[in-house]
Structures are given as structure tokens and as C-alpha cells.
């Protein structure tokens, strides 16, 4: 699925996003985005007054912008993505329009019919939330949304099972010429000192392997993912006599995207942005239900 306006979503690429699942928002309206920006701005200022701000003593002028990203959705039944941006206005030269983006967060729903079909009218389904920037701002923005729309944010963790699906799915994606190597990082349990194993695979070899495993293009089964991963594990075992299947897969990096088990994602190709978001939306919905 190719995004019609890759330039509009290009700013989402190559940034590290922390993932959250969000329960449906009560009485949220696309028509009131400017009002929300104003209210959120006032909330942040109030939090600063209370001394819960990030920096102490410095007069910070934080500007809040809330906008809609209509291209980020799977079907017409999905809600358009909502972007929240916090920028710092330079206090030294207020006339200077230069603003520094200090925090971004966006809500989205890509092919979230499973959730939106089962939810009463007044609720808006935007189950996936991605944040980039200081945790303190994520916390303040999250609190405002939770209070205003009666929703609940939870960190979305990615299990080794989820990550191996991503490894298989993303390996199958066609990328132009200089694709980066596929890297899998494993954490070895039960050792006195933590040990991480990094396994890098040439992208063409990985794709060739996946192509022999996948039976129907466009469809992936758990069996195929298992066979793919087992091949990689046995290859590693043959060389290093280590059973990667006894360790925990914690990070997957491919040319499409990279994902970490703590629930951190980085998008690298705008062409596959919606595809990855669809998988993440599904995971967020399972966490909510």
C-alpha cells in the first residue's frame, strides 16, 4: 500500500517512536482540534506553575499544535490520524518565528475495524499512539488526553513472537538497491552478566530464504514465520553452537523499519509506513481488548 503523499508523512521517518495502546476516546471531534490545542497549552502552562515542568527557572513558551493527518489510515472507516506537536518559542526573540520542535505524538488507526465496529457512537477509535521526545511531556500530554476524553494509555510491548512476525514480514518487502542488512538482537537469559547477541543477515539472503518459505504472496502464516526463524537459528547454531531459540529476541532491524521489545519503533520507508502501522494497530487493539 503506497501512501499517496509520501512527502507529508516523511517527517515521521527515521525517528524513534515509543508505542502505546489507547482505549477509545469519548466525545473527541476532528472539528475542535484548535480548541484542543488551546486547552492542552493551558494545561501545560498550569502544570509548569505547579512545578511539574521539565525545566526549572527558565521561562519556556511552549506552543501546541494539533492537526489531522488524513493520509494515515487503512480504509475510509478508519479515523484520520491526529498529530500533536510541542514546539519551543525562543524567549530571546519573540518576533522570531523560529520554533524548535521538542515533542511529537500522534494517534492513529490503520484497519482497526475489529475495534471500531464494536464501539458505541460517541467514541473515536485511535488505538495506536506514538511519541517522540521527553518522557515528561509524553506524561503531561497523556494525562490531558486521559482526563479530557476518559481514555487510558498503556505502553505497548512487543513480544519475541511479535518481533519474529515483523522480521518475516519486512524481509519479504521489496526495497530498492541499497537495502541495509537485517539485524536480529537476542538477549541471553540466566547469566550473571547480561549478554546480547547480534545476528546480521545480508538482506538478499534473507529475502531469498523468505521467498522459499512463503507459499502465497501477500499472505503469511505462523508456520511460515516459524520455518523462517528456525532456518536462521539452525544456520547460527551450525556456526556458533548456540541455540538462539533459547534466548529472547529483543530487536529486529530491516530496511523497512526497526522494532524493539520495549515498544519502540522506527519507520525507514514511507512506502511501507501504512503496512507497519496496520500491524501495530492490530497489536494495540489486542492489548486493549
Amino acid at each position, binding site marked *: 500500500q503506497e501512501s499517496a503523499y509520501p512527502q507529508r508523512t516523511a517527517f515521521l521517518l527515521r525517528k524513534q517512536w515509543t508505542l502505546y495502546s489507547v482505549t477509545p476516546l469519548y466525545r473527541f471531534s476532528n472539528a475542535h482540534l484548535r480548541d484542543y490545542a488551546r486547552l492542552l497549552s493551558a494545561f501545560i502552562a498550569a502544570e509548569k506553575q505547579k512545578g511539574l515542568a521539565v525545566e526549572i527557572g527558565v521561562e519556556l513558551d511552549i506552543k501546541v499544535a494539533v492537526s489531522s493527518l488524513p493520509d494515515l489510515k487503512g480504509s475510509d472507516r478508519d479515523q484520520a490520524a491526529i498529530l500533536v506537536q510541542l514546539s519551543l518559542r525562543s524567549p530571546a526573540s519573540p518576533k522570531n518565528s523560529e520554533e524548535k520542535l521538542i515533542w511529537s505524538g500522534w494517534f492513529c488507526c490503520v484497519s482497526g475495524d475489529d475495534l471500531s465496529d464494536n464501539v458505541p457512537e460517541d467514541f473515536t477509535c485511535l488505538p495506536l499512539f506514538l511519541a517522540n521526545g521527553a518522557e515528561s511531556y509524553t506524561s503531561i500530554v497523556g494525562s490531558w488526553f486521559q482526563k479530557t476524553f476518559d481514555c487510558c494509555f498503556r505502553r505497548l510491548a512487543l*513480544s519475541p*513472537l511479535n518481533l519474529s512476525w515483523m522480521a518475516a514480514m519486512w524481509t519479504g518487502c521489496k526495497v530498492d538497491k541499497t537495502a541495509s542488512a537485517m539485524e536480529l538482537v537476542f538477549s541471553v537469559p540466566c547469566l550473571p552478566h547480561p549478554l546480547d547477541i547480534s545476528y546480521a543477515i545480508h538482506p538478499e539472503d534473507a529475502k531469498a530464504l523468505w521467498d522459499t518459505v512463503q507459499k502465497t504472496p501477500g499472505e503469511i502464516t*505462523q508456520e511460515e514465520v516459524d520455518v523462517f526463524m528456525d532456518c536462521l537459528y539452525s544456520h547460527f547454531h551450525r556456526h556458533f553452537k548456540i541455540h538462539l531459540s*533459547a534466548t529472547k529476541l529483543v530487536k529486529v532491524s530491516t530496511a523497512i523499519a526497526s522494532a524493539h521489545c520495549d515498544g519502540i519503533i522506527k519507520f525507514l520507508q514511507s512506502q511501507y509506513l501504512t503496512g507497519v502501522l496496520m500491524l501495530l494497530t492490530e497489536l494495540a487493539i489486542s492489548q486493549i481488548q
Partner: protein
Amino acid sequence: HLATSLPLPSERDHLRPRIDLIAFMIDIKSKYSLKNVEASLDHVDASFFLGKVCFLVTGVGRVNNCSVDMNAIWKLGEVYCSPVLFCELELEGIRVATAQRLLRMLQICAGHIPGVSALSFGSLMRNSADD
């Protein structure tokens, strides 16, 4: 008796008491443990699968560490007609409760409970949807 895999070493066969119950442990955090159990199952005599085998799945407390597909485990239970028990070894309460369950099953398998045989486990296993 604890073993990391089957078959058991043949040198000690003559010293070994009768085996009444085999509990295969699968750690949901380790794909390797599932593979190990699958390979070990091949070495078990068919007569054991009449109620003298069960699967014990551990590590279920933390779903985010899941490396094993649950469907594969259910399938294992189905194919080998044996019960699948879940537990979290790190929690004492669950550990104790699971041990008690296993002990009860063992008593039945060893024939210590009059009127109940290991064969009854098989009928309890049948999916109610099949009837």
C-alpha cells in the same frame, strides 16, 4: 526424576523404578524448550499417552516475553491427547497449587486412587464442541 531430554540414558534402566507420569515442561519464553519437548516425545512409548503424559507450560505470567505460539502448544495437547497445564513458577502460590495438581494426577496414574484410572484423563480431554 528430572531429565533435560529423552531418551533417558540406558545404563540406568535396570535401576529405574516404574514411570507413572511424564510431565513435559515447556517454557513459553523459549522456543528451544518446545523443540526439545517435541523431539523427546518421539522416544515415549505409545502406552504412556493413555493419560500418563501431561504438558506443563511455564512462564505464562509475562505475556510480553512469549516466544512460543500458543496454537502450537494447544495442537501438541490435541495430537498427543494429553492435558496442558499452565503455571508461573516464580509465584509461590501457583507453584504450590500446580505441584499439588501434578501430585494428584500422579496418584491416579500410579493406581493409588481406587475407581479412577489414568484413562479418565483422556475422556476429560475431549473437546465439548466435538460432542
